[in-house]
């Protein structure tokens, strides 16, 4: 397997609380892997460590074999890891198009003065950026809403826009944090197809956090199960489904939640 992303013994402590404990993972170049676990298991914290928002208390994150520890969040994105957020974080008062364009910002090759004096280079670069953005919006069936404010999109489209925005940074690894949260069954079904299609079309690695078991089982090839910050199982969907530890930890909690 050609590994693109690797985490080694990641540990995150918040004061006395161990949110993530010794978490190790390997992701191949075009893998579609899931991370599941009950609420508060430490899934989002893993993403925050990979993307540089938190510096891990212990452990290492390697992209293409190079450690990312201590790198700025923006640099990690520029080097090829981009994410979506559990609680959608779009630029709400900006247009759909501007949301996508901002993700292409770091590739723009003109300076501030070029933008003040509207040079040829400015126009050429802006035209390229817009074209790329519109192409991506077309793929995500959002091109007719390019000029709508992000906050005015229906919920499902906001989730879709956030995935499109992350892809606009041209990542090697895409991290999706509960993309189906708050979606109705129809939207979830559409999303399932979309995630798989994105991996096939862009040929990138996807790490998917999901609370919803069904979606993960359907779309992921390999699954990590975490509980209380610790990995309790790893395997393909059928292995995970039949793992008594998972059933106990994960489904047990769900039963409690339903009561």
């Amino acid at each position, binding site marked *: 397997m050609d590994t693109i992303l690797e985490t080694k013994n990641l540990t995150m402590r918040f004061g006395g609380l161990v949110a993530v404990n010794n978490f190790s993972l390997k992701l191949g170049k075009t893998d579609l892997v899931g991370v599941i676990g009950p609420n508060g298991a430490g899934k989002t914290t893993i993403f925050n460590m990979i*993307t540089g*928002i938190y510096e891990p208390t212990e452990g290492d994150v390697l992209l293409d074999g190079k450690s990312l520890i201590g790198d*700025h*969040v*923006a*640099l990690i*994105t*520029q080097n090829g890891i*981009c*994410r979506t*957020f559990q609680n959608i*974080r*779009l*630029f*709400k*008062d*900006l*247009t759909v*198009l*501007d949301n996508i*364009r*901002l*993700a292409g*910002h*770091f590739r*723009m090759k*003109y300076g*501030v003065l*070029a*933008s*003040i*004096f*509207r040079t040829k280079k*400015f126009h050429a*670069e*802006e035209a390229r*950026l*817009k074209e790329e953005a*519109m192409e991506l919006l077309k793929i995500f069936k959002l091109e007719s809403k*390019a*000029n709508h404010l992000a906050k005015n999109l229906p919920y499902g489209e906001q989730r879709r826009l956030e995935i499109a*925005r992350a892809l606009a*940074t041209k990542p090697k690894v895409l991290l999706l944090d509960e993309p189906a949260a708050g979606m109705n069954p129809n939207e979830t079904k559409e999303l399932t197809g979309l995630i798989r299609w994105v991996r096939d079309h862009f040929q990138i690695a996807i790490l998917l956090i999901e609370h919803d078991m069904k979606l993960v089982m359907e779309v992921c090839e390999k699954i990590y199960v975490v509980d209380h910050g610790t990995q309790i199982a790893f395997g393909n969907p059928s292995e995970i489904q039949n793992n008594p530890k998972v059933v106990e930890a994960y489904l047990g909690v769900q039963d409690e939640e339903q009561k």
Partner: protein
Amino acid sequence: MSQYIADLALLCGVFIILAVSLNLINGICGQFSLGHAGFWAVGAYSAAAYSVYFAPPILDSLNLLIACGIGFISAALAGVLIGVPCLRLRGDYLAIATLGFGEIIRIFIMNMDSIGGPRGFTGIPKWSNLFWVYLWVVITIVFVVNLLRGTHGRAIISIREDEIAADSMGIYTFKYKTMAFVIGAGFAGVAGALFAHDSQFLHPNGFTFMWSVIILLMIILGGLGSVTGSVIGAVILTILPELLRFFGDTVSEWRMVIYSLLLIILMLWRPGGIFGKHEISLPFFGKKEKA
């Protein structure tokens, strides 16, 4: 009377530059600065020091241009000095730090004898006029508007929208916060230079914290984030105290109370300010694009 109107129009221009530049920092980038009068003072005093002590005997307009350049650069440098340590702080702390800066600048000037200290700085040549002031108004507005319609301006706006998301999209937010802050400070410095060469006299008490608040009121009144709004807000709050003067001294003394009432009414009537985040587009800014 016509001289009076011309003076007032010139002052409007100075405050338009101040409001538009503060709007870049507060309204567009979302960094709450309360030190704009400080940058105004830095620009005014450094430009005045140039024209009193160093200006060669060349064309007045050329000297004024140099003075404005010096005002911009010195205020921008002050912006770097304040911005780099303070912009890492969150909202409230930044406000307190910039407020402190404004006061420190004033006390610093108070103790500099060569620029007048507590007596005030006199003998500044009268080089400003309506033409030069409004030329700078246009330069400021075109600069800010064109910046906003490019990738750097969008990056500045994204910070106001969601800083973590901006970082996560590969944008070095600290760089763009500093950029907005320094450009905003620089144009406040130009406003200072123009002001100094109009009033011909500067006093540290002319740049108190209250002025930072009034400039802030201008942009809130017009609508945080809207350049058009900043212009309108600046004009209204420059002319209003003059109108109040017609009603006699007592009314004039209640100026700040009237401002507060105005602000309360505005917040009830239009919480986003007169213009909200909208703009009036003029053709010379370039066409608004369609997607």
